[in-house]
């Protein structure tokens, strides 16, 4: 397991090196700018020969669960996991192979605060602590824009996730955490998405996307549930985007449907559900090469199956640099 962790660190170092080698100011990419949303995938691709580098942080605050409440929920549901908050920092690099085809790599680092799990065994409930921080898995994806024009841009996306992340974290009793609690799931996953972007006026844009993530069985014969995301975002460019610095408020709605997790082929009772987020945010173009975006995601509807911890809010912020 130690070897696997070192291998992951090695891959991460190689990725950093790759980025450093290729950072050069060659070509601008102010291009068709409808991106900068929290979750919605825009149908816009990078210009041919352009690299983009993105750093993104997603902070999630969960509902407060005290130890006594945790025990209560474990008695009710058989087992229950709780965390105060999580921080997922990701880094992605994209490259425009042609004007309509972009390939990208994404990986990240996961951190959590006060992770606890409780389990009911032989009429006895115990609380275990763990520190599931570490490197996440690596996504390789490509986006192809098959149509563009005044009526809008249409693109499809496909991706595969490699199990390069840490998936051997243990609790204080020495038991391995389930794949869904690990920074890396230990599985090869696949995704496909459809995206559409258009301008209503010169300054008012709309993006929408639907994405399906298919997951395979990961570490410990555990399969994290598949996921469907449907998102709609609208942006109004207060300052035209070919002037710098410029700014645009962003409004977004995201519906996330989670399928149930499976352990040894059987459905996990306390998993799956539907969450709807409304997220106001802002996007700014600092220079033609440098952009910034931030959004707050408020869950306005949560229907989580079984006993699960609800989300209070999320904050997503990121910078992107193209060269």
């Amino acid at each position: 397991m130690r070897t696997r962790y070192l291998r992951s660190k090695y891959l991460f170092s190689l990725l950093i090196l790759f980025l450093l080698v290729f950072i050069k100011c060659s070509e601008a990419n102010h291009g068709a700018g409808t991106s900068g949303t929290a979750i919605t995938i825009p149908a816009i691709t990078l210009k041919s020969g352009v690299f983009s580098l993105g750093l993104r942080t997603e902070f999630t605050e969960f509902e407060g669960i005290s130890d006594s409440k945790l025990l209560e929920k474990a008695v009710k549901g058989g087992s229950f996991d709780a965390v105060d908050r999580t921080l997922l920092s990701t880094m992605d690099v994209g490259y425009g192979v042609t004007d309509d085809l972009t390939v990208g790599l994404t990986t990240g680092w996961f951190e959590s605060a006060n992770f606890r799990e409780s389990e009911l065994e032989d009429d006895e409930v115990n609380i275990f602590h763990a520190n599931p921080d570490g490197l996440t898995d690596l996504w390789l994806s490509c986006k192809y824009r098959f149509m563009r024009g005044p009526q809008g841009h249409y693109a499809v996306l496909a991706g595969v996730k490699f199990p390069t992340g840490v998936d051997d974290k243990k609790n204080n009793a020495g038991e391995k955490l389930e794949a869904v609690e690990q920074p890396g799931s230990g599985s090869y996953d696949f995704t496909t998405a459809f995206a559409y972007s258009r301008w209503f006026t010169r300054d008012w844009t709309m993006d929408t996307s639907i994405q399906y993530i298919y997951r395979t069985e990961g570490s410990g014969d555990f399969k994290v549930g598949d996921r469907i995301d449907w998102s709609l975002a609208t942006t109004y460019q207060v300052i035209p985007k070919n002037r710098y610095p410029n700014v645009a408020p962003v409004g977004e709605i995201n519906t996330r449907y989670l399928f149930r997790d499976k352990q040894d082929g059987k459905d996990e009772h306390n998993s799956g559900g539907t969450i709807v987020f409304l997220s106001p945010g802002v996007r700014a173009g600092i220079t033609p090469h440098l952009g910034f975006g931030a959004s707050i995601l408020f869950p306005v509807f949560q229907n989580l199956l079984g006993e699960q911890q609800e989300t209070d809010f999320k904050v997503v912020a990121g910078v992107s640099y193209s060269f």
Partner: protein
Amino acid sequence: MVNRYFLVVVVFLFVITGCAGPVTSSKKGKPRVVDPVCAYFSDMGCVNIEVCENTPKSMYEGVTYYFCSSECKADFDKNPLKYLKMASSPKGARDPVCHMGIDELVKFVPSVYLNKVYYFCSDYCRAKFLSNPDYYMEKE
């Protein structure tokens, strides 16, 4: 708690969509030209640009092209044909000044006036049109 968040978000969305009205009448009269690079990428955010003294421009085979930014100009200068190939005119389009058939020409100058695209055989015709657009539009 959730209701309060919901109210804030609804007000926010209302404000930004309220701002997103059509182009104001004060802007309607301003002549605009097409940035061939943004037109190639269907980037409607800056495809129609106002021309002023500082507008980036490039000359290619005797025709001046204007750009929304120096980045677009740099892209154009690297490979002008890539962007001009896309700027094909509609069949049957005629220069409103000299009445030359645009689809017979290898190169032409597109320009936007009052949300309509006009095609010209040269910068000369375009400038003549923009000096008195009402006159040429009436003649059409």
